[in-house]
């Protein structure tokens, strides 16, 4: 994968840039020697690494503003970083960039139960937002798999989802406001504790902009009352078609589960070998979770099971207790880890119309045969967000490239059937070069023009999201000169 050639004039000015950063930050908040910056050389897309010029770890919005102002004046690219859990390389540095990590911005600033929001600094982890309000019976709904580690800043940058967004939506549906620092150091508040935008929906635009429009330092998040209870049912099917049709019928019947998770046979087998969750050996498995009081849960599960029975299920296991629920979820939650035990893997994130599920799974199996790489599928079936896991051997020359080529084919397939390249992970560097498969030249031009407004000198996370050739003139500052 190609990254821009580092700007030699920036590398030559390293000492001066570091000195200026040290002048506005405590000594321990600036890292610049190789031993210290190495930790920041990659995120969760570990195949690609590059230590940055320096790393800064501010503890306030004012410090972030001071850092950005300096980088703006010095013309140095800035790579914002939450917890570094991006699977898309959203926080991958270049050698001439300053990594701005928000991990130390982790305080809760305000909790307001009457108005059902919490205001936090953006480096706070996703799960600890819920942790701050759960004693009062509340939770923060978006729940990406990495929620123990991932930061709200990264969630906002990628508009993260999770298993429960069928009912509760993704980050953008749960974000009320942000405090953001623009590249020139200007601090702005967008939105707040009230609903809807006063003018253009800039909050909606900022969410999911992958750290390219500004650095979010504070977020006002909607919190919800926890349901009285939740329980899943596990259902096995002999064909992907039957499982796919069952998902569609559940949705059509007016039941809205909080989660519908899907695993195919390769993934079930890997998970069994690793987590021993006791899953049946079937072609396709669904985990459907509903919420409410005991009686409401029983009513909904009865309805779901009745629908499933029309599709000739091989197995139905309804959870009757917290312990059984945990066992049903154990395998699903261990799925990525289980696949990782077998081999290195690449996790894709395309979304497809639910009706295309059986066709796409068949095509993925064909591609798997063609490339000679195994694929397991585990995904959020209710909203069509797939996570094919392609297994490869990082130590085998050419295997990573083969895996990437196959991944690209699968994502193109998602687009062909009416879906998209990424449902919740973001484009980052990983899917950058596929953008023209989904968008026209004009569509991309319109998006680049938005960055031109927020960051005219193209310094914020500049080598991400768009194919490098489409942004080259801007990154080289010609835009400013024109």
């Amino acid at each position, binding site marked *: 994968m190609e990254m821009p050639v580092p700007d030699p004039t920036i590398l030559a000015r390293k000492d001066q840039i570091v000195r200026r950063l040290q002048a506005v930050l405590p000594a321990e908040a600036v890292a610049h020697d190789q031993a210290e910056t190495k930790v920041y050389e990659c995120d969760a897309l570990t195949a690609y690494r590059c230590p940055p010029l320096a790393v800064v770890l501010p503890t306030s919005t004012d410090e972030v503003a001071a850092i950005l102002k300096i980088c703006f004046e010095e013309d140095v690219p800035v790579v914002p970083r939450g917890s570094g859990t991006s699977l898309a390389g959203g926080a991958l540095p270049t050698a001439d960039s300053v990594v701005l990590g928000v991990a130390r911005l982790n305080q809760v600033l305000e909790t307001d*139960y*009457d*108005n059902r*929001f919490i205001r936090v600094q953006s480096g706070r982890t996703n799960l600890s937002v819920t942790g701050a309000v759960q004693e009062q*019976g*509340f939770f923060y709904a978006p729940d990406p798999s990495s929620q123990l580690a991932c930061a709200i800043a990264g969630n906002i940058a990628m*508009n993260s989802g999770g298993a429960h967004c*069928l009912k509760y*939506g993704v980050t953008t549906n749960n974000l009320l406001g942000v405090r953001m620092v*623009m590249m020139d150091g200007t601090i*702005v*508040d*967008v939105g*707040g*504790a*009230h*609903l*809807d935008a*006063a*003018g253009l*929906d*800039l909050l*909606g*635009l900022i*969410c999911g*902009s992958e750290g390219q429009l500004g650095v979010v330092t504070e977020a006002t998040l909607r919190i919800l*009352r*926890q349901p009285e209870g939740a329980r899943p049912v596990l259902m096995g099917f002999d064909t992907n078609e039957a499982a796919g049709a069952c998902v*569609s019928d559940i*949705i059509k*019947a*007016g039941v809205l589960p909080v989660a519908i998770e899907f695993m195919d046979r390769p993934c079930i087998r890997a998970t069994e070998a690793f987590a021993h969750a006791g899953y049946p050996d079937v072609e396709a498995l669904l985990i459907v979770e509903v919420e409410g*009081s005991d*009686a*409401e849960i029983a*009513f909904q599960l009865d309805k779901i099971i009745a629908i499933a029975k029309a599709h000739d299920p091989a197995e139905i296991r309804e959870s009757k207790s917290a312990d059984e629920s945990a066992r049903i979820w154990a395998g699903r939650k261990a799925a990525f880890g289980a696949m990782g035990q077998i081999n290195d893997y690449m996790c894709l994130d395309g*979304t497809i*119309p*639910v*009706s295309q599920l059986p066709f796409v799974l068949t095509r993925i199996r064909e591609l798997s045969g063609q490339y000679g790489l195994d694929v397991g599928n585990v995904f959020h079936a209710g*909203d*069509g*967000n797939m996570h094919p896991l392609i297994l490869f051997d990082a130590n085998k020359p050419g295997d990573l490239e083969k895996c990437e080529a196959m991944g690209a084919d699968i994502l193109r397939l998602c687009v062909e059937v*009416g*879906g*998209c390249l990424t*449902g*919740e*992970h973001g*484009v980052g560097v990983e*899917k950058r070069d596929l953008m023209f498969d989904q968008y*026209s030249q*004009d*569509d991309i031009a*319109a*998006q680049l*023009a*938005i*960055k031109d*407004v927020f960051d005219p000198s193209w310094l914020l996370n500049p080598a991400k999201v768009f194919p490098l050739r489409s942004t080259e003139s801007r990154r080289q500052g010609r835009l400013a000169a024109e």
Partner: protein
Amino acid sequence: MMKISDENGLAEAIAASAGSLRITGGGTRALGNPVDGDDLSVAGLTGISLYEPGALTLVAKAGTPVDEIEALLASEGQRLAFEPMDHRGLSKHQGTPTIGGVVAANVSGPRRIAVGACRDFLLGVRFVDGMGRVLKNGGRVMKNVTGYDLVKLMAGSFGSLGVISEVSLKVLPEPETRAVLLIEGLDDARAIAALSAALSAPYDVTGAAHIVAGLDGAPVTMIRLEGFEASVKYRAERLRDELSGFGAGQIEADPVKTAAGWAWLRDLEAFHGKAGDVWRISVKPSDGPSVGARLQPFGAEVIYDWGGGLVWALVPEGTDVRQAVAGIAGHARIERAAAETRLRFGAFPSTGVVLDKVAADLRHKFDPRGILNPGIMG
């Protein structure tokens, strides 16, 4: 008046336009600042091109009547969950509301407090910018983070960035039944406290409003529950018991009456046929009563929706509501007023020097000639 029948025609008309364009769908809403320009209507761009009930997805051309979409959804037991308001009673404009108009104005209703606004259900858009380029963003799937989210940006942009030609929406099942818990006689502060308690309970409240002067003139607080029959009954009773400290609640489960009651609220029927300006004020719910109190000296008639966070105010013509509520965080928009009043105060508030400039710069990128609904948002 330029009539458009397809997207290419729309692109050509915009590219060829020598002057400003006043863009309309059904022309029923009359929101924003007055716009000078040739009328460009997308009402001729009609048709539902895709509806997959099992995927909760519908795609329609911008001029498609909202009624037509809702009728098709109803035939499959589904609906537009964000409950778009029908402005005709308020605006006194005739015409047929279109889905493009709903999206362009990000029109939502009482259920916005529970499920989100129109923008939260918008999965994709196609639109033509001020240079006549046909652009798309998003798609027809429920999760999509590929590139910038222009879908949200277009929702509520009132035609000032581009003219929407097609929208893709997430739809939801129509619940089996509904019930409304009614508590009478509460003052504003107590009512909003009751609504907060209801919205903070684990019972999936899908409507939370307070009518200061109900049909019989007395205040009534309304809390809506929807779902399967047994579940609705259970939750309504639990909520009535948990809120008993606010007063004896009545549970109304008649489907016709409850539907009419929420449509009455959604469309602001209480203000129909009355003179005066109508303002829409969005604040955090606990600030709602302060907004009401500040407007009382002006003789305002007030309705609280969204748990108190949306204040609808009917005030004498020319009242400067924005000035009256200054200092309370949120925003105030003119929903109905004479052209000169909208020009004087601005239908939309300023969002501050920096963000106003960002918005102006964005408009300039999409519409360098400044011909699309110029000035409609300020």
